[in-house]
């Protein structure tokens, strides 16, 4: 049984994004879940499934109680940080397509700046396979996502002649979108190449503006059947292709021991499977929300998803392909770099807005299909949304 066209995003909900929400993560979760229901035109009592990230601090049943959800017939969580983004949607899609639940809300809510920050290092004393994995890095001082990603970015950039200016082009393209997005950290805060190049280096070759935001906020996505979505308030964003992906030699952030370090094998796998399910190829994709915890990841993904040959992703960036009038407008809300870091859920929300034709930066061209990816350098996933036929 294929999941193609069986389900749709019928509602999206966001809280305000800030650096200090002043409320609990449960409150953020409840607010965004309620907002997704409102957006779809469904009462919260219609929710019968809830899915989140293992990194989320809020349990499904706490959210259910807070929002007054109905009886839950499906609840689960997906691992690997931002790599879970499409994965949580896939859980909901499978639950709905198999009749296990009717209206499943996926959420991620975090006090990512005022509370537990992602870059605060890994340590601990409980022995698990995951902790043994981190043990190879913590003694050497590789304690943060930036340090792990920089190792791959440096090799990739060295091999293909990608410069800091090229990373800057990605950061500035997304900041340009954010300057007009009132939800965004980068709202009315333009970024120049001079400012980019003058910002402090964090982990060579990555500087401050190559890093995503740290954000307090929540984002929720309501999944229901394509059939039911047609009767709801919003234009459905049909899920045409969706998959998770993890490959041989996969580690969480540190897949350093494969023969090649200059490609993203798990993202290539995600691309192949998502395209195959949708019956589409890169030429059919009109816009994208590629995961962007770091600017370098965008350039590499252009190759993973077949928009450019290996080593040529940077050419697309230099041509302005990611901009609003370009070949592949990308992260038109500003992305994790310049809107907010809600672990990729906010990128999924923007993809749905593009399908509805309601992005604050809606490209003038017809947008039929939008590609979304999950976290880079971790077990990941990809999804293709389409306009209802």
């Amino acid at each position, binding site marked *: 049984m294929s999941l193609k066209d069986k389900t749709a995003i019928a509602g999206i909900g966001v809280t305000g994004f800030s650096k200090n929400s002043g409320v609990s993560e449960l409150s953020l979760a409840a607010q965004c879940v309620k907002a997704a229901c409102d957006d779809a035109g469904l009462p919260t009592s219609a929710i019968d499934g809830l899915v989140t990230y293992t990194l989320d601090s809020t349990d499904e049943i706490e959210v259910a109680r807070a929002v007054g959800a109905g009886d839950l017939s499906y609840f689960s969580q997906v691992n690997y940080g931002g790599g879970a983004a499409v994965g949580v949607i896939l859980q909901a899609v499978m639950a709905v397509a198999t009749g296990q639940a009717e209206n499943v809300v996926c959420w991620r809510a975090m006090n990512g700046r005022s509370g537990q920050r992602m*870059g605060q*290092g890994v*340590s*601990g*004393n*409980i*022995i698990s*396979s995951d*902790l*043994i*994995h981190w*043990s*190879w*890095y*913590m*003694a*050497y*001082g*590789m*304690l*943060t996502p930036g*340090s792990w990603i*920089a*190792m*791959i970015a*440096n*090799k990739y950039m*060295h091999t293909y002649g990608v410069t800091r200016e090229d990373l800057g082009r990605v950061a500035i393209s997304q900041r340009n979108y954010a300057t007009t997005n009132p939800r965004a950290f980068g709202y009315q805060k333009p970024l120049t190449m001079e400012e980019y190049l003058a910002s*402090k*280096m*964090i*982990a*060579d*070759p990555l500087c401050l503006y190559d890093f995503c935001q740290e954000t307090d906020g929540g984002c929720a996505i309501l999944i229901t059947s394509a059939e039911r979505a047609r009767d709801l308030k919003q234009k459905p964003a049909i899920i045409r292709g969706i998959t998770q992906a993890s490959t*041989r030699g996969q580690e969480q952030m*540190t897949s*350093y*021991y494969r023969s090649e*370090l200059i490609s993203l094998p798990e993202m290539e796998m995600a691309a192949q499977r998502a395209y195959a399910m949708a019956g589409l190829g890169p030429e059919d994709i009109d816009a994208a929300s590629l995961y962007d915890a770091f600017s370098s990841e965008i350039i590499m993904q252009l190759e993973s998803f077949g928009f450019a040959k290996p080593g040529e992703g940077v050419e697309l960036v230099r041509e302005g392909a990611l901009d609003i009038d370009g070949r592949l407008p990308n992260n038109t809300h500003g992305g994790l770099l310049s809107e907010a870091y809600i672990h990729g859920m906010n990128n999924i929300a923007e993809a749905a807005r593009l399908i509805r034709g309601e992005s604050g930066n809606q490209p003038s061209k017809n947008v039929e299909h939008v590609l979304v990816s999950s976290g880079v350098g971790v077990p990941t996933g990809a999804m293709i949304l389409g306009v209802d036929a």
Partner: protein
Amino acid sequence: MGAGRIKPPLGHDNAWWWEMADQGKLGIQRCKNCGVLRHPPSPMCGECQSLDWEAIESTGAGTICSFTVLRHPQFPGYDYPLIIVLIDLEEGTRITSQLVDCEPEAVEFGMPVQMRIQEDPDGFKLPVFAPAGTGGAA
């Protein structure tokens, strides 16, 4: 001086490697059934699924596959700027480590390096690498 660098949590699958380091050796895991070398270590061979393995001692000679210079945030127990390297060992496996006795501006892809055991002020020992020919050879 503080507590020094963060110590690796030790379990069945990695403690032996750090014990070798404490004895001044850089270990590599080898499958006793098919002979494949593997790092980071794992309890089962991904090639032949054998649970039998042994540790060999690396010569410590290698080249820099990739690197990064960590500048921020700065954690207690480490010296910044901190050069982290991926080393292709001559035995064929790859290892993540630290580069010492080298300025950040002087690091190059493909640079030959040699392992040495560093002993921290608190007595903790770990394999690090230095540019070849700088006294790093055992």
